[in-house]
């Protein structure tokens, strides 16, 4: 699909999009292939026509960017004034959709809290988590040490007890 020629003039609206529009406009009508191809090229020609005219109007107005106003005036002067109402309606719709999308995303992001505050809260949570982890690790270490000590002590006292009981028997015998 990559164009090897790179020639700007080969740019056209995709054939499929045109076919779809023709089908919607003229349902049940058979359209010759070369006629379809011609419509594709007419589109490009139309876009050039509007762009050039709008560009001229723009240049005369001392502005650098072609504005919606320039396009509308171009349509008027080229005999396409009948398009203007519908075209303006669509513009309004596009703006509304874009606005809704922006509002929705910012609502989700902010939740009314400024960014610095959110960052600060995040840092706090991280610090707390780190501390908790450190404490936990230390506790576990202590417990292990204690367990080890206890085991040692148990082993030691067991052997002491054995010795003690053997000598105790001797004492008991003396007292009697």
């Amino acid at each position, binding site marked *: 699909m990559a164009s090897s020629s790179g020639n*700007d003039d080969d740019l056209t609206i995709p054939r499929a999009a045109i076919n779809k*529009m023709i089908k919607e406009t003229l349902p049940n*009508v*058979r359209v010759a292939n070369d006629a379809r191809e011609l419509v594709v090229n007419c589109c490009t020609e139309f876009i050039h026509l509007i762009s050039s005219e709008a560009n001229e109007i723009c240049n005369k107005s001392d502005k650098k960017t072609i504005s919606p106003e320039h*396009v509308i005036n171009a349509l008027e002067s080229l005999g396409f004034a009948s398009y203007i109402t519908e075209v303006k309606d669509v513009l309004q719709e596009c703006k509304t959709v874009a606005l809704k999308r922006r509002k929705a995303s910012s609502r989700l992001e902010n939740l009314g809290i400024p960014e610095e505050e959110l960052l600060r809260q995040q840092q706090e949570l991280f610090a707390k988590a780190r501390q908790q982890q450190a404490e936990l690790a230390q506790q576990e270490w202590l417990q292990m040490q204690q367990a080890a000590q206890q085991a040692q002590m148990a082993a030691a006292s067991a052997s002491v007890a054995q010795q003690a009981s053997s000598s105790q028997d001797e004492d008991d015998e003396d007292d009697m």
Partner: protein
Amino acid sequence: MSQTNSGKDSQASEAKKAISLPISRVRLIMKSSPDVSSINQDALFLTTKATELFVQHLALTSFNNRSQTEANTLNYSDLAKTAEESDTFHFLTDILPKKILAQDYLKTLEQMQDEDSDF
């Protein structure tokens, strides 16, 4: 999660209903016009929609004025006819090489050769 997705989808389909042609492609074509520098996004929307209306307008007009009214077909010649006869669509004649029948062309060729052979 499903709620936000369906919200996005309905917004996307709203925009889809408004414009069916690819806006990025229209921008590329506009910029390939000589001297055109920058185009406001809204101006781009307008041009795209105008192009859509143009396609519908051209197709309908050509079909209604077609030479073969008995057939439910739109031919190349119908479009060419509309371009030549209509003021609004006359700018299209630039890209319309007049299609001539092969036999007519051959006849013209023969005539030219005959003229040459006279000398």
